[in-house]
């Protein structure tokens, strides 16, 4: 871990300003990912701006009939919230499928969105990784890639977004609210929040430098049956090989998003119209143009069968 300076600002815009004016500064909230990465010198911020004292930890109804989730609401609290459990069960289930009880107690809503990939080459500073060290190359392309992306990747990077919560938020068409150094705020739709790696894999999201997440808003409830199905090699405490977030209506229509397959939660709205025809019709369309490696080609079949499992669970 490199030495760093540290401050606790007193308002969100001050926090944003502090990160914007300090070279190589980062926000810290729960720290469940950032601190690990700092110990391994994968992240080497010179300055940390601790946002934990800023409030931003309530869940409130919105005038539109949805919920506004503060950036610092802990994963445990969000998953347990009665309104979330009732109207956004897919989000609650996704949260509970992730990490461990201890980590969820600490991890925040905003921090969860910003967690970085678990690609093994990102984690080994002796190896080439464009995401960690731009221009160094991608060892994963011809390396150990069983966990990695099958769609939306590039010649520069096949990392995945490792989270579960974001997949449910993408499904729900949530919006990420931010504030910048000047105090102006904006809403970023989840569809646009995580980006594909392209030739800049070091950039995970569309946040601008110093832009601070203040909340995630959930639109009004969709109804239907909510399913989050996460497939992994062991029963708990593992990243998804493939996950499916789905909301299915009694008439067979619905939505489906996939985790563990791309640099962002993967949802193709145009494919969802085929849900009444079954899983294969949806995944054929949603994964058209996939470029898996030899080691992770199984994820295409697995995505189809996991969606099938989700549909089955919703009908049961």
């Amino acid at each position, binding site marked *: 871990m490199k030495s760093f300076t540290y401050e606790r600002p007193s308002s969100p815009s001050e926090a944003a300003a502090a990160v914007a004016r300090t070279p190589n500064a980062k926000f810290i909230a729960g720290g469940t990912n950032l601190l690990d990465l700092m110990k391994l010198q994968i992240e080497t911020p010179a300055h940390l701006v601790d946002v934990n004292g800023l409030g931003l930890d309530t869940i409130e109804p919105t005038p539109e009939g949805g919920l506004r989730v503060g950036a610092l609401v802990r994963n445990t609290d969000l998953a347990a919230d009665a309104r979330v459990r009732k109207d956004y069960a897919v989000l609650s289930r996704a949260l509970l499928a992730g990490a461990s009880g201890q980590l969820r107690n600490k991890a925040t809503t905003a921090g969860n969105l910003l967690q970085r990939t678990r690609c093994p080459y990102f984690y*080994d500073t*002796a190896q080439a990784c464009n995401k960690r060290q731009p221009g160094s190359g991608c060892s994963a392309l011809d390396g150990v890639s069983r966990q990695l992306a099958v769609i939306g990747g590039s010649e520069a990077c096949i990392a995945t977004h490792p989270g579960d919560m974001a997949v449910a938020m993408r499904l729900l068409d949530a919006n990420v609210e931010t504030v910048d150094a000047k105090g102006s705020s904006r809403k970023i739709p989840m569809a646009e929040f995580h980006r594909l790696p392209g030739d800049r894999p070091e950039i995970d999201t569309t946040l601008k430098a110093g832009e601070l997440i203040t909340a995630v808003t959930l639109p009004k409830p969709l109804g239907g049956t909510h399913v989050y199905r996460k497939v992994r090699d062991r029963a708990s405490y593992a990243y998804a090989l493939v996950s499916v977030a789905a909301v299915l209506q009694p008439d067979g229509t619905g939505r489906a998003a996939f985790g563990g397959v791309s640099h962002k939660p993967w949802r193709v709205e145009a494919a969802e119209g085929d849900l009444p025809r079954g899983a294969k019709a949806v995944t054929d369309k949603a994964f058209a143009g996939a470029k898996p490696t030899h080691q992770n080609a*199984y994820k295409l079949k*697995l995505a189809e069968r996991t969606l099938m*499992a989700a549909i089955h669970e919703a009908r049961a």
Partner: protein
Amino acid sequence: MKFDTPAGQNPIDRLKVVGQPTDRIDGKYKTTGTAPYAYERHDVTPSQAYGYVLGAGIAKGGIRGMDTSIARTAPGVLAIVTTLETPRMERGTMNTAYLFGGDQVQHYHQAIAVVVAETFEQARAASFLITVDYTPETGKFDLAAEAKSAKPVKGDSGEGSGGNGEERVGDFEGAFAKAQVTFDEIYATADESHAMMEPHATVAAWEGDKVTLWTSNQMITWAHESMAKILGIPKANVRIDSPYVGGGFGGKLFVRADAVLAALGAKAAGRPVKVALTRPLIANNTTHRPATIQRVRIGATKDGTITAIAHESTSGNLPDGDPETAVSQTKLLYAGANRLTAMKLALLDLPEGNAMRAPGEAPGLMVLEVAMDEMAEKLGIDPVEFRVRNDTQVDPHAPDRRFSHRDLVGCLKLGADRFGWAKRNAKPGSLRDGQWLVGVGVASAFRNNMVMKSGARVRLDEQGTVTVETDMTDIGTGTYTIIAQTAAEMMGVPLDKVVVRLGDSDFPASAGSGGQWGANSSTSGVYAACVKLREAVAQRLGINSADAVFEDGQVRSGNRGVPLGEAAQGGLTVEDTIEFGELSKTYQQSTFGAHFVEVGVDVHTAEIRVRRMLAVCAAGRILNPKSARSQVIGGMTMGVGAALMEELAVDTKRGFFANHDLAGYEVPVHADIPHQDVIFLDEVDPISSPMKAKGVGELGICGVSAAVANAVYNATGIRVREYPLTLDKFLDRMPDAA
């Protein structure tokens, strides 16, 4: 004491303390955090500085230069020792890879420097400031690709499994060609990491030319000898102390870079230094269980009598390394007149392969016991019955050599009964429970029983307290407790009158913890010392030792009873060593078991979840059913890991295990492990030792993975012959689920 004739009646047979399900006497220290592990020995020496080990970033090649100038000026840095300024050091007696020194890199994350600083964080940060100029060379990293060039090899795991390059009985090829039913398949097992909870760690302090190493090690005598050799100093100048070990599984049988670099760092810094290997270094710097490619051929008559059996295994290792002795059990487990076992070794430039819990038998049975299942199906015979039918009571390679005691059949039959095997659906893929395809599987468990010379010192004080000292280790197995039970039984005192001190090289040399020989051998050493102490007590009290009865804290002879402590005026200390004669050669000594497993396989996603497990073990007298059960369920859990998830993922281009942390190298979590039942057959083996016990610590893992794989087949009708059985290997063969 020499043990060279089968044990007769002795005080252990009273079973007042031995054989009772006793809580760990060190349990309260462990649960209250007052049992210090190596890295927590804060009180043993003042002013401890922190060492951080830098691992090589290439798998093979040379180091042209290392620039430490910036690192040396970093905050808190006290000293840096690099591999370039250190001539290549001798290896420890059991090491294959060199641990430190010189300009050659043999494997990824080989230690190339230690940075010593005031704090751990400073040492780690400074290590990132060292720049290394490598001259990488092309290496061989892919076992499947190198298997063609593998050479026949002799091998010995050092843990009771082994063999010559090729061993034959009768005419295997001829008998196989003539067999009415034949079977021939190839399987693969993965590289596995010990992944013990406590990392390798050492605190080193020099006093003049003498060094003390407070470390985490299973084998004190090996560590003692190895550290003297590596450091080039007399054994008398090295002390090793390892009273608590947070898991080893074979990974701590041999000294590793933490001990060497703590010693070098302490010398360079002129201060005591502590070093723990980081999690990534445990995968690539230390040892692992090597991957294997195995072929099994079985020929049998239609009624299921094996007439020909062959087991061949290929594994890889660094130069001077041993093969994984995966064919060893096949020499002994089943009858059959015509036999072939063979091992081949390919040169690989991956980190060192070496012993991991049940080396040889664990990966060997993962394959043999699936092959037996496949052959049983081919024959149309129940897999339990097929095994029973081919039992042998003699060593098939030397038929006049009997097993000391063998009840594999008893394990299989009792297990089948308790597990409800009769309800098994023989037709695979035919039982469904909701989203789950359900199946059951069985496998035999087999592990040789090793006996090793083991010494102990026992001291009696005037209060009647018995103190046992031996360099034996407790690696989480329960050694403290069974040694206390042994001394209490022998001296006729309650457990709280026994003090056990372990793991110090100043104590008498013991068997150490490895190869499941520790419990039986070390308690036999304590038995021997206690026999001597009983004689000394009797002599002091002027009674005939044969007439003396030691019970309830008293020594009784006829009507006379004297408190034990009275014999200890001024203290009474004796020492003895059990030495084993030819009985382990005259007889084949092994341990046996049967594993039964029920799994569910998700009908859509092919996720496998274990639903039920039962092990029945026949391993002589069980010294402490409670800690023995813990050993077996730990082995069963590890076997589930090997079956379903554990794999060091080889980057065959760059030559290293890429998933080198516990997020990437998955082991079972609680949610993966269902209720586990363990039954020990009530038996004794007087040929094994005066304790009449054998090992169980490794028996528990042997065969488990095959029982899981056989259950998966029974559930799905799909055979997966490559471990671990992750869903990507068979999802495309799963039946339609729509």
